[in-house]
């Protein structure tokens, strides 16, 4: 089994003293072809990893922006095979860039856990984030994931309390550090005390740590980066896609617009 791209990527970044920038888009929003173009632009403009959300009918951990993106992707007829095809294209065109899926566990479960991770492997997917598969339920999918060289990315939150140590003890690839309570969506401000939060995390494990949930501006990214190894930006990007759609941009223009937007993040304190 080859080394997981995520490990390679973070090793490189750490070696260079750089922080990862991880954009998120919903696969198939507004259609799978456009997602492909957008993803390429994101990478060209400095994404270090790319995260594809698999659209879901009832995304109960997501806020309104991503809920609407999921809805658009489903209306366009996006299915798992399309997401695999998209991932496959991106992972083969960009051999350094790890592709990570974010989806609800039901999508995996109903598809068939073994079949799902086999298809991940074929599509060159390096990690899968299952926001509703916590530590306690992970054994249901992790053996299959690992047997196909796919990491289940663990999440930790400021209110994980005594669970934190256990989560970090088994985390692989990188740790998804939820910046604040609540669902996905931009925040103008965080109530979280990041110093204390990351002191706690760093004392427990050396695994790369990325902050996500609510990061909404290059300035926020800049201020969070010192604490961690990377920053995940989702709703802010998805909202620009929505705006572009509303403006009637064609897929090339939309991809360009997103490239330019993402550059504002990657240019800042690179």
């Amino acid at each position: 089994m080859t080394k997981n791209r995520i490990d390679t990527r973070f090793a490189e970044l750490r070696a260079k003293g750089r922080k990862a920038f991880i954009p998120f888009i919903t696969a198939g929003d507004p259609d799978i072809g456009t997602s492909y173009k957008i993803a390429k632009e994101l990478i060209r403009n400095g994404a270090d990893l790319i995260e594809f959300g698999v659209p879901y009918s009832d995304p109960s951990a997501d806020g309104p922006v991503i809920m609407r993106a999921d809805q658009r992707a489903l209306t366009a007829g996006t299915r798992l095979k399309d997401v695999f095809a998209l991932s496959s294209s991106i992972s083969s065109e960009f051999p350094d860039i790890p592709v990570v899926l974010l989806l609800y566990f039901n999508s995996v479960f109903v598809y068939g856990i073994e079949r799902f991770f086999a298809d991940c492997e074929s599509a060159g997917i390096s990690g899968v984030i299952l926001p509703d598969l916590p530590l306690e339920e992970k054994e249901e999918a992790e053996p299959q994931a690992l047997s196909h060289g796919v990491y289940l990315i663990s999440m930790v939150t400021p209110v994980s309390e005594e669970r934190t140590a256990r989560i970090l003890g088994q985390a692989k690839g990188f740790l998804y550090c939820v910046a604040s309570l609540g669902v996905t969506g931009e925040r103008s401000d965080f109530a979280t005390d990041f110093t204390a939060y990351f002191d706690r995390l760093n004392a427990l494990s050396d695994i790369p740590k990325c902050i996500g949930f609510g990061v909404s501006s290059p300035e926020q990214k800049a201020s969070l980066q010192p604490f961690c190894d990377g920053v995940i930006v989702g709703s802010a990007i998805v909202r620009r896609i929505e705006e572009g759609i509303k403006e009637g941009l064609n897929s090339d223009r939309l991809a360009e617009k997103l490239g330019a937007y993402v550059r504002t993040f990657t240019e800042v304190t690179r």
Partner: protein
Amino acid sequence: MKDGRYGEFGGQYSPETLMYALSELETAYREAVKDPTFDAEYRRLLREYAGRPSLLYLAERVSADLNTTVYLKREDLNHTGAHKINNVLGQILLAVRMGKKRVIAETGAGQHGVATATAAALFGLSCDVFMGIEDTRRQSLNVYRMELLGAQVHPVTDGTGTLKDATSEAMREWSRRVEDTFYVIGSVVGPHPYPEIVRDFQRVIGDEIRAEMLRLHGRLPDALFACVGGGSNAMGTFFPFLNDKGVRLIGAEAGGEGIDTDRHAASLTKGTTGVFHGMKSIFLQDEEGQIAPVYSISAGLDYPGIGPEHAHLFRTGRAEYYPVTDEEAVCAFEYLSRTEGIIPAIESAHALALFRRMKDQFSPDQQVVVTLSGRGDKDVEAIGEYRGRFQKEEYHD
């Protein structure tokens, strides 16, 4: 069976943000049930506030008509008009014990929301209720009631604007305010320990049936009927009889416009195993696990899943579940109103309708209990519309 699992079903498929809160809840619950003062206070509230025990009513005219002996377990006579209050009083006591000052709840028919707002008022807690926008229309009276009780009602416009969307939204809100907020779940659904907690707080229904039937007849009933939305009134009814193999346990699901249409909510009959709203159970969903839009005339049964313990009872065959159409339920609603002077909740009418359909399976000397989970005042207007009646001009003087 491991904690929180019912065979393959159950579990705790929750975002990490909620996991600590769930374990805190479980710990608090395990301590509470061991604390005699907690149980005493819960029992006192059931008795002195909810008005329990609820009546076990021998429906003589229905019995004569259907040629069996039918008892109705009258949860409709509880304060606030449904079984929901049993569970809510327990959970609110837990919330108070845990020092929470704010509760939230999802609601479908509005009965759970009313019950939660009621208990929150009683304990001086602040209360926010999430309700699908479609349900706020179908059950507008209950929206008014919650507001009067001091709760904020938040109509949820996502998805089909019904119970599943309200539940998702309540979970989102809980994850936003998990530190100061107690989420009062309204049925035996959601991540562990909720299905267990709700069942434990609803088993008073079955415990009372059991005691009363033994007192009256010295033996257990032959069958129990209950409607299943999330499944709390049914689980409360069935649970104390799980080991009594001679007692048939029969649940009525919402068959909507028919299970051969796409307008129903018959999760067990037509669903497949999946993971949603924190639990592994049986859901109406497509081959990729997208949750299906469901439909029932009854807001309280209009949910694409069912509690995990029911999924287990279904799979193991210990309990039976059948779909009941809107039309059958409305007929039973009218039937009971005219026959016994009891207007049942349209949810509960599903249970009675199922019994009417299956009556030939019971002989006159057998005894059947149908749980009337709630009263039908909230439904009267909607049923009138369904029937195309109530054109005011029709009145004659």
